[in-house]
């Protein structure tokens, strides 16, 4: 009887595990099937490098270069803002802050991670967008810069907590050794701690960027959504994610437009996959 119970539980767990993998594979296959269908009628090269995205004109122009550049520009901007601040914050929390401040900061960071992105987008829309508009004297504040700033807030919790973890796990005797040689606290941090934690910090940055590039709601609300190739960070842009979210509802199932949106999904998947694998490589290097 006990053996039977053991057997049933074991198999149940197995089924649950297999189900998770099974669903992922199904989703992936569906994405591939719908996305690759596009390339029966559209040249993949023209799809990726095409400069105009007019999916409902006649004939439809399905070039996603403006969207890719939009995504990259917003992500790059967010990275430039969030990496220095995030890493510096991690150094402060793990090395400098007194233990009370440390606790407060850590829960603050966790709270920041818990804010739903639509809420962040909404706050950005009513505060950040008018601010950008008036500071740079622009016709509209819905720009790539606004998106970058907002996304920097979303990347920061990930960057801070993973980088802080990496710094924390640097063996204490490195620090002692540096102090014993007469290094100051700052010299110890940037000559020993940061190099020792470098792979974990790179992983933190990659995970943060991964979060940014997949983000949809906030960017859709504040980047202006115009699918043109951006020439400056002060122009409206449209990202890959926002395009799918905005147009999926109106695309006719089975149309070229519909397949094109799935193909964008594949492009996004490939980008995220590369970023996550890179982060993983660095995390494992650390261990």
């Amino acid at each position, binding site marked *: 009887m006990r053996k039977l119970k053991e057997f049933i539980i074991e198999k149940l767990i197995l089924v649950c595990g297999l189900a998770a993998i099974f669903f992922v594979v199904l989703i992936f296959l569906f994405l591939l099937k719908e996305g690759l269908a596009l390339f029966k009628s559209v040249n993949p090269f023209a799809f990726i490098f095409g400069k105009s995205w007019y999916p409902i004109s006649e004939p439809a122009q399905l070039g996603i270069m403006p969207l890719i550049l939009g995504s990259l520009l917003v992500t790059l901007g967010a990275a430039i803002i969030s990496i220095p601040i995030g890493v510096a914050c991690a150094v402060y929390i793990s090395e400098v802050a007194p233990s009370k401040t440390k606790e407060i900061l850590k829960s603050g960071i966790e709270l920041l991670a818990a804010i739903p992105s639509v809420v962040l987008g909404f706050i950005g829309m009513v505060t950040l967008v008018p601010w950008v508009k008036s500071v740079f004297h622009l016709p509209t504040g819905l720009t790539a810069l606004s998106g970058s700033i907002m996304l920097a807030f979303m990347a920061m919790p990930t960057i801070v907590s993973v980088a802080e973890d990496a710094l924390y796990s640097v*063996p204490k*005797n*490195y*620090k*002692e*050794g*540096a*102090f*014993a*040689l*007469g*290094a*100051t606290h700052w*010299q110890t941090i940037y*000559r*020993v701690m940061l*190099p*020792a934690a470098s792979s974990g910090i790179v992983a933190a940055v990659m995970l943060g960027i991964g979060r940014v590039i997949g983000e949809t709601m906030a960017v859709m609300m504040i980047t202006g959504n115009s699918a043109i190739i951006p020439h400056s960070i002060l122009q409206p842009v449209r990202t890959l994610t926002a395009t799918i979210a905005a147009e999926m509802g109106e695309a006719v199932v089975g149309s070229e437009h519909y397949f094109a949106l799935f193909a964008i999904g594949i492009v996004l998947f490939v980008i995220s996959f590369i970023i996550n694998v890179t982060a993983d490589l660095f995390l494992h290097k650390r261990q």
Partner: protein
Amino acid sequence: MAKISTNSLNLWYADFHALKDVNISIEERRITAIIGPSGCGKSTLLRTFNRMNDLIDGVRIGGQILIDGRNAVEPGVDLVALRKKVGMVFQRPNPFPLSIYENIVFGEKVHAGKISRDKLDGIVEYSLKSVLLWDELKDKLRKSALSLSLEQKQRLCIARLIAVQPDIVLMDEPCSTLDPQATARIEELMRELKNNYTIIIVTHSMQQAARVSDDTGFMLLGELIEFGKTQDIFTAPKNKQTEDYITGRFG
């Protein structure tokens, strides 16, 4: 004059009284061993000489530590200068995760800022020669220090110290992770270094203290029980507790 002397040195970790009225006087260019059972305060004593205990929260120190006549525990002491003068080798070899070369020039870069390449090369060669690693490592200076054997790592840590030209070298059980042959070679190196440096070694191995040191102090429960010439301590201890410890009745 003594190189290091303490006047009723007391130390507390929060409520725990770890050093009790320690008065010790350590001579220049000799090897002084501090022995005693685990938890007797010997490492704590060693770490007060370069103020490494400051890294621990809740430490209080009373009394005086005179190093070349200057009190090292009064407020406002320049800790950077103190630690440059009083270097430390740790129980677990702790080379930085940098190249061998960068490990050795670490101290110089930290203290002097910009220095010419030639001068750094000279420091690396001199320091590695002092610890007898030059011939083994001169072609691998760019390799990671973490790829070395334990003994090589510990020698590298000593070389890293020599590069900043300290006066005093503190060694906190420097051989406890090494095998007997490697231990013998490090001890040989200590005898060599004695010509230029004042060495204080904490060890739980009485045999090591007997082999390598000139003077020995025995500590128990935070107190310095007996201090004298190593020969005298091991052959004719004056104190009953010292005798019990070195004859292996407890510890």
